[in-house]
Each structure stands twice: as C-alpha cells, then as structure tokens.
C-alpha cells in the first residue's frame, strides 16, 4: 500500500522504535557477552588477581588438550550425548506412536509423560538422590523385594560405573515428554487418508509407523533432534546436584567443568574456551543432524 522512499523511511523508523526495547536487551545481555567471551578465549584472566584480561593468542585452545580434566569431561559429555540422544529419540517416538493409538484416556497418558517437563532439573536431581538412596531409597527397596539382593545394595550415584548412566536416566525422565509433544504433533498432522490408504493395503503396525508415518514427519524429526542435541550436550544441573562431577571425574561434563573453572577457580579465559568448545560441539552436531535429515528427505 505504502510506496516511495519517505514512507519506507518512516516505516523503518516506526519499526526500530517498536523493536528498541527487545533490541537493547539482546545487544547488552546476549550480543555483547557473545563477543566478549569469544575475546576471553584468547586471554588469560584470573578474575581474583588480574585487573584485566591478558592477551595470549591461541594458547588456551592449545593447552586445553593437555588438561586431563578437560579430556575426561569431553569424553563424559560425548558418551552421555550418544546414549542420551539415541535413547531419547527412540523411546519418545515409540511412546508417541503408542499414545496416538489410544482412544479413551489419551489425555491422561499424555499428561503422565509430559509432567516431568515442569520439574526443574536441579529438583529432579534432589528427587532422584532420595529415590536412589542406597538404604532408604525406593528404587533399591523394590530391587531387593524382587530378589535382586546384590543390585539392591548398590549406591548408584556413587559407583564409578553407574553414576553416568544414572544421570542419563534422570535426564531422560525429564525430557522424553518434550520430544513426545513434538512427535505427537507431527503424527497428528499426517493426513488420515494417507494412513487409511496404507491400512487398506494391509500394512502391519510397524510398517505403518516406520514406513508410512515416519517419512511424513521429517520436520518434526529434525526439530526433536535439534532440541535433543542441545539437551544432550549442556549437561549441568543433574551432575551438579547429584554427584558434583564425581566419583573422581566420572560425571564431570564440559558444562560443569567450564562452570567450575570460571566460578570455582576464576580462570575466565580458560572457562570461556571450554564454553566455546561446548557451543561448537552443539552447532556441529546440529549441522550434522540437519544435513542428515535433509538428505534423507529428498
């Protein structure tokens, strides 16, 4: 409707005014920190002793690989991510398929699976420390009453081999519902006629789900995949609350290590470097996931 240079300028001016409050917040608390912490990765900056960051070039990026704690936290994060991602994608898809089939009571089943979403990860951690308590916890109690005496006396969060899997399980409990929401939205957007037609052709339950519905929910798959990658790599609250990264460094994750380096040891340059490597991992895997799901789509 509006044309000409002056009205365009006017429209831009109005738009900038409307955007100004949001823009201001995003520049000061997101854009500037993003740039500043990138700058910090090229510095040494002890927040307690140094008055200003000291430029050291790429030294942080080189020396970090000789840090044993960094290597363990990288390894733990990747192991966590691989198991978490595979399980969360698979189970949430299956659960969504099943819930979609239910007639009566569908809302109840949805709500049951969605409910952990409202629990802050830190409180999920506190809850599970209690549930997994070796003596008074309900989990071991049930194991013992089922006759698994040896397993029923395990201290899951303090055992070197079970601490990380326990954290995977707690995180799964919290986030599976998140993916189920996305998958259900996808499944329910597939036209009934497509499914009816396939059923007339006599496809089995699994053929219908994996050969008819799955190719039709590519967008939802890649969306759930992106959310899951972010969740899989930024592991912080659960180990912070349940294990403090231990036993040893069994559950030390990149996020936790970066945080401890910054706010426990106040080595801001090194901490920013770890944070940036973590961010790079997330972006790399997101990119990979996008590429993979796109190619499959063609």
């Amino acid at each position, binding site marked *: 409707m509006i044309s000409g240079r002056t009205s365009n300028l006017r429209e831009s001016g109005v738009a900038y005014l*409307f955007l100004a409050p949001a823009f201001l*917040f995003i520049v000061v608390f997101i854009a500037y920190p993003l740039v500043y*912490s990138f700058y910090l990765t090229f510095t040494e900056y002890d927040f307690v002793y140094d008055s200003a960051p000291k430029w050291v070039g790429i030294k942080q990026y080189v020396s970090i690989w000789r840090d044993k704690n960094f290597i363990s936290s990288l390894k733990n994060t990747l192991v966590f991510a691989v198991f978490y991602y595979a399980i969360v994608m698979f189970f949430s898809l299956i659960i969504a398929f099943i819930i979609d089939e239910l007639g009566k009571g569908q809302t109840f089943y949805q709500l049951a*699976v*969605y*409910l952990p*979403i409202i*629990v802050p990860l830190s*409180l999920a951690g506190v809850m599970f420390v209690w549930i997994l308590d070796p003596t008074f916890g309900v989990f071991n109690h049930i194991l013992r009453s089922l006759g698994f005496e040896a397993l029923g006396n395990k201290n899951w969060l303090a055992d070197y081999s079970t601490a990380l899997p326990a954290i995977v399980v707690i995180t799964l409990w919290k986030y599976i519902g998140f993916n189920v929401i996305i998958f259900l939205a996808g499944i329910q957007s597939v036209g009934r006629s497509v499914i009816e037609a396939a059923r007339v052709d006599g496809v089995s339950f699994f053929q219908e789900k994996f050969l008819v519905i799955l190719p039709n929910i590519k967008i939802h798959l890649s969306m759930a995949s992106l959310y899951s990658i972010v969740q899989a790599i930024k592991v*912080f609250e659960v180990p912070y609350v349940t294990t403090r990264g231990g036993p040893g460094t069994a559950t030390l994750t990149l996020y936790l290590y970066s945080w401890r380096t910054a706010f426990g040891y106040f080595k801001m340059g090194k901490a920013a470097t770890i944070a940036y490597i973590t961010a790079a991992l997330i972006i790399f895997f997101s990119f990979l996931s996008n590429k993979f799901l796109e190619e499959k789509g063609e």
Partner: protein
Amino acid sequence: MIRKKSTLLILYLIATLVALIFLAPFVWIIFTSLKPSKEVFSYPITLFPRSITLEHYEYVIFKMSDFRRYFWNSTIITGVSLAIIAISSSLGGYALGRKNFWGKNWFIAFILLVLAIPYSVYLIPIFIMETRLGIKNSYLALILPYVALNLPWGLFIMMGTFRGVPSEIEDAARIDGCSEYQLWSKIMLPLAKPGLATTIIITFIFIWQEFIYAVTLQTDARWKTLPVGIVHIRDELQSLAYDNLSVAIILSLLPLFIVFVALKDFFIKGIVEGGLKG
C-alpha cells in the same frame, strides 16, 4: 479401519506401564511428604504410608522462613521478567512480523543462532559485568539476563502471530485514521492474545526452573530462587531431611503444575511452533 482388540489391549498395557514409570517419582515424593519422620527413615522402608501426617507441610509453610523467602524471590523475579518479556516481545514481534526495515533478516538470523548456543557462553561476561556494576545478589541480577535469554522465544512466537493477522484489517484501520500506536494497541494486540499467552506460559515455565544463572549470580542465600534454594537447604542440612525437602519440592512445583495442566495446549503450541520456525 479399527485395530484388533488384542493389539489395543497390548498398547494400553504398555502405555500404562510407561505412565506408571513417569509418575512414580512424583508419587514417591508425595508419599514421603506425608509420612511421619520416623517412618521415612525406618528400615526396611514402607512403600505406602502407614500413617499420614501434615506436620511437614506445617513446618515448611510456617516455620521454614528460608523456603518462604525463596518462594517470594522466585515469584518476584519470574513476575517482573514475564511482564517485561510480554511488553517487549509484543512490541518487537510486531515490528518483525509486519514491517520491513533494514537489518531485519540479520536480526532474525541472530536470534535463531542464540536459541542454539548454550547459556553458559553468556554467563561469564554477564558475571563480570554484574560484579563491576555491583548488582549481583539483587532481583535485577536475574531479571535482566532472564528477559534477554527468553526474548528470542517470545519474539519468534509473536512475530508469527502478528504475521498471521490479515492485512485487510490493517488497511481498514489505517483508512479509519489510526495512528501507528493505536493500530498496535487497539487492533493488533487484541488479535495477538493467543500468541502472547503462549509466550508468557513458555517463559514462565523456563524462568521458574532456571538454575545456572541463579546459582552463579545469587551467591547470598537471601536472594536465592527455589531451584537453587532447595538444593542449598539440602546442602546446609547435610542429613537426609527428605521429609521436609519433599514438601518444599512439591510446593515449588505447584505453580508450574497448575499453569501446565490448565494451559497445556498453549505450552505445546509454543514448543512446536517455536521449533518449526527455528
């Protein structure tokens, strides 16, 4: 075509088992909160409460002043952040959804990127900044970053909502002589209410749960929010005070529970649409 009865029965069985697994932690915490302390720490433990008491609720609500303080802090910080997010995202979303201006696509691309980058990247500079300004351990310490971190979601949802308003409505209002501000406040905003509700619910759930910023920027116990405060109480007690802790957890989940159950569809819409655009 309807599935065979036997198939449906199996599906219901699996679904029920899954639902039980997901609900079990809640049930256990509720049971713990209702048992007398002696029963909570009896061995072997009891699955179902043998006797029921409300003494832990009484204690946490009336005697645990720390808990009340944390609840209050969470309420203020979440409430003020939500108000600022609601205003600035419905203003900004309008500009992004209905106006053309230089730099728009760059801005959208940038907030897309923000959604993928972990929060900790911003945390170190924000910590340094807030230390220099002396605003750590205050309401502002969390309100400012919470607004910024949740704005990308709000902007996306509001941008989509405003984009969906038919342009005939805008043209008609202009012909009637509406000013830009009137157009936004009288015509557009009322039409964007569902989007605004989605934004508020999603950000409410995110902010009430936030942990990393809260644990870093509020080092003084006085200013802690619930997710950090409850962990703090646990660490302070150094013992298994899970009877009272269970109550504290239940009470701090209550606002989230009420909002989620009542307005679930808005939350779902926000998650799915926010993601589809991103």
